[in-house]
C-alpha cells in the first residue's frame, strides 16, 4: 500500500498489530451483546412476522431492572442480572398476550404500529419512573484491566462477553434440542401445517416474544454496567438489532449471531480507524451495502422468508 502516510509508517508494525487486536477484542465484547439483540429480533420477525420496534425498550428494561435490583433490592450483581432477564421475559409475555394476540392475522403494518406505540409508551414510562439523568450501574469487578499479551481488557468486559456467549449457546440449545424449540421451528417453516400437527401457535408466539425480549433484556443488563442506563438507550439498540438482522438475513439465527459479532467488530474498527463520530453509522452503511449486493443477507444460502 503506497498511500500510507509518513507518521503511520514511523510506528513499529507490532504496535499497529497490537492496536488492531485491541479493537478486535473490544469489538467482540460489543458484538456478543449485539448478537443477543439480533437473535431475539430475528426470531420475533421470522416467527411472528412482526417488525418489533419495541425491541430496544426491552434492552432498556434489562438495564433498569438490573439497576433497580442492585440499588433498591440490594441483590447480588449476578442475581440482579438473572432477575433482569426474567423481568424481560415476563413483561415480554405480557405485552404479547395483551397487545399482539388480539391482532393475530392483522397486516404487518398494523402490528408494527402497535409496537411503535408500545415503544413510545415504555420509553416515556421509564423516563417518568427514573428521570432523564443517566444511572450508573455498580458492578463488583476490579477496574484494572487484565492483560493478555498486547491486549488489555477490563474484567467486567470478559464477564459480559462470556455471559453473552453462554446465552447464545443456550438459545441455540433451546431452539435445536427442546420440544418448544421444535415447535418454534415448525411454526417458522409453515404456520398452518404446524397448527394442524397440534402446535399451539398462540403459545408459541407468546414464548417467542418472551424469549426474544429476555435476550434483549440480557443485552441491556450486560451493557448497562459498561455504559450507563438512560431512558432513550433503547433507540440505538433497536437500530443496531435491525442492522444485525439485515446483515444475517431476516429470520436467520446463525446469521444473526455472526452478524452481531461482525457489526461489533466493524463498529470498533470504524471508530478506531475512520472517525469515532461515525461509529453508529457503520451499521447503517453495512445495511445499505448488504442490501445492495446481497439482499438476502451475508450468510443466507436460500431466501428464508418470502
Amino acid at each position: 500500500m503506497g498511500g500510507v502516510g509518513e507518521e503511520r509508517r514511523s510506528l513499529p508494525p507490532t504496535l499497529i498489530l497490537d492496536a488492531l487486536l485491541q479493537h478486535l477484542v473490544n469489538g467482540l465484547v460489543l458484538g456478543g451483546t449485539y448478537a443477543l439483540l439480533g437473535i431475539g429480533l430475528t426470531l420475533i420477525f421470522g416467527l411472528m412476522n412482526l417488525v418489533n420496534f419495541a425491541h430496544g425498550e426491552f434492552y432498556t428494561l434489562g438495564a433498569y431492572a438490573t439497576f433497580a435490583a442492585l440499588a433498591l433490592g440490594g441483590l447480588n450483581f449476578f442475581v440482579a442480572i438473572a432477575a433482569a432477564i426474567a423481568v424481560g421475559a415476563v413483561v415480554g409475555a405480557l405485552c404479547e398476550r395483551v397487545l399482539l394476540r388480539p391482532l393475530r392475522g392483522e397486516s404487518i403494518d398494523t402490528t408494527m404500529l402497535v409496537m411503535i406505540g408500545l415503544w413510545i409508551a415504555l420509553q416515556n414510562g421509564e423516563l417518568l419512573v427514573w428521570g432523564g439523568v443517566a444511572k450508573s450501574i455498580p458492578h463488583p469487578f476490579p477496574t484494572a484491566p487484565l492483560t493478555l499479551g498486547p491486549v488489555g481488557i477490563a474484567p467486567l468486559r470478559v464477564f459480559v462477553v462470556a455471559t453473552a456467549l453462554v446465552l447464545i449457546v443456550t438459545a441455540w440449545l433451546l431452539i435445536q434440542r427442546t420440544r418448544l424449540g421444535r415447535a418454534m421451528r415448525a411454526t417458522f417453516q409453515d404456520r398452518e401445517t404446524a397448527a394442524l400437527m397440534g402446535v399451539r401457535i398462540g403459545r408459541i408466539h407468546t414464548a417467542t416474544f418472551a424469549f426474544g425480549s429476555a435476550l434483549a433484556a440480557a443485552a441491556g443488563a450486560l451493557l448497562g454496567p459498561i455504559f450507563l442506563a438512560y431512558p432513550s438507550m433503547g433507540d440505538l439498540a433497536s437500530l443496531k438489532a435491525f442492522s444485525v438482522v439485515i446483515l444475517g438475513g431476516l429470520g436467520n439465527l446463525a446469521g444473526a449471531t455472526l452478524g452481531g459479532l461482525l457489526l461489533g467488530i466493524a463498529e470498533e474498527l470504524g471508530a478506531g480507524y475512520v472517525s469515532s463520530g461515525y461509529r453508529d453509522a457503520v451499521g447503517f452503511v453495512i445495511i445499505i451495502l448488504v442490501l445492495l449486493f446481497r439482499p438476502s443477507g451475508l450468510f443466507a444460502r436460500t431466501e428464508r422468508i418470502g
Partner: protein
Amino acid sequence: MKRAAGALGAVALLTLPLWLANAYHLHVTIMAGIFTILALSLNLLLGYTGQLSLGHAAFFGIGAYTSALLALKLGWPFWLGLPGAAALAGLAGWAIGRLALKVRGAYFVLVTISFAGVISLVSVNWMELTNGPLGLPGVPAPELAGVSLRTKPAYYYLVLAAVAGSYLLCHRLVHSRLGRAFLALRENESLAESVGVDPTRTLVLAAVVSAALAGVAGSLYAHYVRFVSPEVFLFSYTVTMVIMVVAGGKGTLAGPVVGAVLFTALPEALREAMAWQWQMLAYGVLLVLLVFFLPRGIVPTLTAWRR
C-alpha cells in the same frame, strides 16, 4: 350541502388569522400545515404504493438544510431555495428508491431507516458545512414583493398555499395513470406487471415525488423556525408522520390531512393538561388504542359509517 360545507371550510381557512388571535394557536396551525405536507408525502408511498418509509425525516431534514444553506451561504432567496430543497430531497429519494425498491417490503423500511441514520450523523459531524450540533441560526424569513413574511399570519398564508398545492398535486397524481399503477402494484404486483406496469420504475417515481414534497416541508420549516439543527432528522418526526397517516387513513387523500391536524393539535392540547412526560406516554397509549379500535384510520371508518 357538501359544496356549502366545502365553501364554509375554505372561508374559515382563509380568514383564520382574523379570528384565531392567539399567536400560539396560530403557531400550532402553521406546524399542522407543515406536517400536513409531510403526511401527504408519506401517504404517497405508504398509502398508495404500500411501501413504508421510516426515513422520511431525512428528506424533511435535507430540505431544511438545503434551503437554509442556500440562503445563508449563497444568499439565495426562499423562492429559489424551496425548489432547490425539493430537488435535492427528490434526488435522495431517487437514490434510495433505486437502491431499495428492488427488494421492497421490510427491506425498504430498513434501508430508509439506515439512510436517515447516516444523514443525521453526517449533519452532526460535518462541522464545516452544517455547523454540527450547534445548528444554523439566522435563516432569513421569505420575502414576497419586498415584504418580509416573518409575521405568523403572513407565514400562515404561505403554508396554506403550499398545503393546497401539495394536496392538488397528490390529487392529480393518484388519479392519473401513474397513480393507478401505484394502486395496482399495492394490490397485486404480478397482475400489474402483466399489464405493463414496470414495478421498480413506478415505485422509484413515487419515492422521488414523496421525497421532494417532504423537502418542500423542510424548506418551509427552516424559513419559519429560522433555525436548523440535526434535530430535524429526529426519528420521532418520522414516527409522528407515520402515526398521522395511519390514524387519519392511509390510501385516502383526506386521511393524512385529518391525521396531521389532529396529531399536531392533540399533543399541544395535552401539554396544557399534563406534564410532557405524561403527554408522550399518553401519545403512545393512544396510538395503540387507535390501532385496536380504528384500525383502518379515521377517514375510511367515517366514510364507511356514513354509508
